[in-house]
């Protein structure tokens, strides 16, 4: 069974500032500041190419990052669930 397809909140609804080890994402819609670590900024960047399921997101990430796809999928899936709760991604 195919997994859920996600889309990111439009980039215009977010402010993203990379600090040292963590990044800040200000969500204009909710007014909430999220302090996030890798791979969250990378997931949001990958979704800027359009909506995608976990497999497709990992394929996009693998194009620019060295990763084991089999190991990466459950990690990315878990982060997507968190991002969905935070309101930064939604199921398409």
């Amino acid at each position: 069974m195919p997994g859920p397809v996600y889309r990111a909140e439009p980039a215009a609804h977010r402010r993203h500032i990379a600090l040292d080890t963590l990044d800040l994402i200000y969500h204009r819609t909710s007014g909430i500041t999220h302090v996030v670590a890798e791979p969250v900024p990378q997931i949001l960047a990958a979704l800027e190419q359009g909506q995608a399921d976990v497999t497709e997101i990992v394929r996009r990430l693998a194009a620019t990052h060295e990763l084991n796809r089999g190991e990466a999928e459950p990690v990315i899936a878990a982060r997507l669930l968190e991002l969905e709760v935070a309101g930064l991604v939604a199921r398409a």
Partner: protein
Amino acid sequence: MKHHFDVRIGPVGFRIGSAWRRPVTELATLYAGYPGPDGGIADFTVRLEPERPWRRWLRPSIAIRGDFTLPDAAPLSLAHGLLAAEMGMNLQMALGQRRFLLLHASAVERDGRALLMTGHSGAGKSTLAALLGERGWRFMGDEFALLEPDTGLLHAFPRLVSLKNGAIAQMESEAAAERFGPRLGATPKGDIRHMRPNPRAIAEMGVPARPALILFPRYGFEAADRPMGASEVFVRLTQASTNYVALGEAGFDALSTLVRRVPARAVDYPDTATALGMVEMLWAELAG
């Protein structure tokens, strides 16, 4: 109200109304030399009222009210009227200030650049700022530092210094007796004595400064300092701000810019003499 006192502290004007004369007289004495609100119009109002009508005379008990009120705040005795006024002013700032990002921090200035110190209660930020203010720095405030989102400048808020417990004797040996208010015993925060900042702090309170160093002091440990990353500083300062969320994107911009531009150190110290030396050393090293 029957009695009132108007004052401007940094860029913020207050009107303190009181059902009793005593707190207003004490405020006028301690805030001698401070200007009134710009144009005579206060930004915030504090009212010191009897908790119940008869409590104006019978075992007088002060309820702190104003533009913004905490519904379950415990009333204070009339002897603690000065403390009630200060708490009321802090409360208006904490709940109502929208022009500046409010940081629960002390601040001092040298050569147009500001040193911010923040930390938990008892960390020593207030005492250190008060001492530095007597030793060549300009005292900008011991409770709130006001960061202006548009400019990134820090505005002074040099209200009375609220000295607690051991810090009282320390400052009594540094400053003239006429700058001190009555010693308030057995308050919810222990013994408190208010001290008026020195004339320079009052005369220059309208002059903002550019933040140049942020310190997170911690009293009671062996002397040590460690660099802090921007993200750690960001998280600590959101916790130290009462209005970060209320300011929305302006607050995000102001704080994220501050933590990227200004170096920060966590500083442990065993005594104030050591702390003052560490401040001077870190300032020379980092605030250039």
